């Protein structure tokens, strides 16, 4: 019976390792490949940590399995050995993991800084400034663009353009926007871009990402904000700058629509 349990508890870690091994190929981890350069680096960090942890996991599980098996094999007659502990063993298994952890902490610092520390944001985002302001509210995402040709200001301006649940950004270069919330805490989460940032009431938080490939990217809310949290979704439409300008120009016309369609315009 003991052997059965020893094998039983050894079997599941093997299954765990197998599933971690096949997971990337089967798409069990991430929804897609990272669609932004920073996202790729984040994924790289993830896989690095996964590798380290797997090695440790295999080591410890083998140790556990060995101990279980020995106990099962030895039988009930032998007395246990009393050990006063081993100072050197304790030293080793404290120092080595701490070195590994410090390594991980230092290795990821630059990715963290680029993502979270404003002074490390790509230079282009400092020059361009925020492209739009995204205000999270229960349960939608309100977008405010500055008037084409002007800078975004924190106070709404007469020429600002408004949209909801759909943000148009340019591909191929870092884009920064201001994240706010109208009511409770929300979180801006673009899974395919590996971007996540809490929206905190009272704060205006700059968030940046870069999207090389044009397309539609999901945004979901990642901070429980009420009964509609599950359906609080938006779309990032990434397209060439020219098309973004076209979209904004159309938005401006639409926002200035006065209900009168003249004959000339109908011919267009």
């Amino acid at each position, binding site marked *: 019976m003991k052997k059965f349990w020893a094998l039983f508890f050894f079997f599941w870690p093997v299954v765990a390792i197998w599933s971690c091994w096949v997971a990337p190929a089967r798409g069990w981890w991430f929804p897609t490949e990272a669609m932004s350069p920073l996202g790729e680096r984040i994924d790289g960090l993830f896989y690095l940590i996964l590798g380290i942890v797997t090695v440790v996991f295999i080591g410890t599980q083998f140790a556990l399995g060995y101990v279980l098996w020995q106990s099962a094999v030895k039988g009930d007659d032998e007395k246990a050995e009393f050990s006063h502990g081993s100072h050197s063993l304790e030293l080793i298994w404290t120092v080595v993991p701490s070195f590994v952890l410090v390594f991980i902490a230092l290795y990821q610092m630059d990715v963290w800084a680029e993502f979270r520390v404003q002074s490390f944001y790509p230079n282009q985002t400092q020059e361009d400034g925020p492209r739009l302001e995204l205000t999270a509210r229960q349960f939608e995402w309100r977008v405010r663009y500055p008037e084409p040709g002007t800078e975004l200001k924190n106070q709404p301006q*007469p020429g600002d353009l408004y949209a909801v649940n759909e943000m148009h950004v340019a591909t191929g270069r870092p884009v920064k926007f201001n994240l706010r919330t109208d009511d409770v805490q929300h979180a801006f989460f673009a899974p395919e871009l590996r971007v996540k940032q809490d929206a905190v009431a009272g704060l205006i938080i700059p968030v940046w990402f870069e999207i090389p490939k044009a397309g539609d990217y999901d945004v979901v809310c990642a901070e429980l904000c009420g009964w509609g949290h599950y359906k609080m979704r938006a779309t990032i439409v990434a397209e060439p700058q020219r098309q973004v300008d076209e979209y904004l120009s159309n938005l401006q016309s639409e926002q200035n629509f006065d209900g009168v369609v003249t004959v000339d315009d109908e011919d267009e």
Partner: protein
Amino acid sequence: MLVQMNRHIATLIAAALMVFVAGCGESLNSSFVYSEQTESLMLEAQDGFHKGDDDLPGAKDLIDERFGNPQSLKAWSKLPVDFGGVTGRVVETPDSKTLILNFDAELPVQTDVPLNLQFVSGPAATIVVKIDKLSSGAWAASLSGNLETLIRAHNDNNQGEDTKSIPIAGDDVVLNDDVKGRVVATPDMKTLTLNFDEEVQVQSGEPLMLEFVTGPAAEIVVEIDKLSEVPPTASLSGNLETLIKAHNDNNQGEETKSVPVAGDVVVLNGGVVLQHGRGLYMRHCSHCHGTSGDGNGPTAQYLVPRPRDYRQGVFKFTSTNDQAKISRDDLHRVLKNGIPGTYMPSFVPMLNEDDKHAVVEYVRLLAMRGEFEKKIGVELSPDFSKAAVTARIEGGESKPEIVESLREFLAEDMADSLEFVSDDLETAWTTADTDGAVITPDMSRVPDSPESRRLGRELYLSKGINCADCHGIAGKGDGPQTTIFEKNPVTQQLYDTPGLHDVWDNVNQPRNLTRGIYRGGRRPIDLFRRIHAGIKGSRMPSFKIVPHEQIWHIVNYVLSIPFEVEPGHAPVVNASAEATPQASL
């Protein structure tokens, strides 16, 4: 050891069973509620007379007959609601498992949706049958030659080129160089079954030349002797006779049904749109707007402003004139943009076009149900509400007399009232979707300028228009009207809270124009419409008598209020929209 294991396993099995017992599927056991007005009618007016020879429906029966309950919605065809489904007629019943039909509209493309056919008229009326396969919209072409012979001849004449062979299903064809289509089948060498992408006009005398564009017979041209349309043929999953006999056995005492005949009206997948809308509504809307659209769902009590109560048939933010109902376009706009400044969010991208259409139809159905109930109530309340009955008894009438007068009313006058009410509903809701109902300014927007805004401010403060009375001198929504005590126009009782009230009896706070939040949309045309038609249901009145040029001045002023340094002073920053507004939709 084993005993311990058994106990654990037993717990596991019990836990698993609970899931099956409690169920993990949808259980929509909900029902529509009746309005306060209906509930305050005398009981006989609510329930009608159903004892003995009487079969006079009361108010509740009338509503249930026409609208049903969420689980069993009724399709009252008089209402301008898209119930979904395609109407058609039976052409022939060649055998018990096949029906040849003619449909009034194009058949939906979805083939994986289960197909239900309901007989609406004729001997099999109300019976629903399942269709296994529906072939539709095909054309049978009898060729003047023989395909094999033609192709062999072509091959012999064109040695050295590709050898052609018989066309197969899926090959593209062109009829008379004009109409594109494709081959569905080649039943024999003299017949082809084809599907065309557009209308085929068959003119007698005109030669019909069919050219194969792709496939084994590409480039070959054949002449068609006769081209006839093959009507949609439905192969049923059961046997008609058996189904009808089973229905008759199960419903003894009701009319016996028999096999349908040519000319019977049928509906394919009737109610699909409403079913879809119901599912979406219950999932996404009912927690605020309530099962019956009464604006009183579980989360409604926490919200200011309250969610819309559809049952008055009144919606605030419309593009239609002050007498008209809301249009479908307006409802779509609300779903797309949400209502900024309220708890109504945008439902795009969550809902696609089909979803939005289904939800809009369901909401319209709920609104019409509420309105129908209200109008029935209006017919019955003056004489037969509980309060009225008490007054009549005090006035000397006896209860049996009143009940008898109610019976007479239901038997004789109710039919006319119903007709009037339903005609009214139909007209109002159909008109709302016409172009004529939409408010279109008779001139383009006056270009935004300090001068226009100054004129707008003057009009804002003028005695005739007097926006400041409610919206306040500085546009903060704190005008003198917000402090009065007014009476409920229906009950003639004073409201508990000071200020203006809307038709839903909620406090109607005039908009604070300094915030730059425009619930019905921030386009100049949206503001124009708010002013022109007022905001239906609220105390914002209609200013349709004001010349459109003046309305534009007011619009320009209102749009500038959030950027004013002081009330009535033009903002320091230059407002934009100097460019001439371009047309768009």
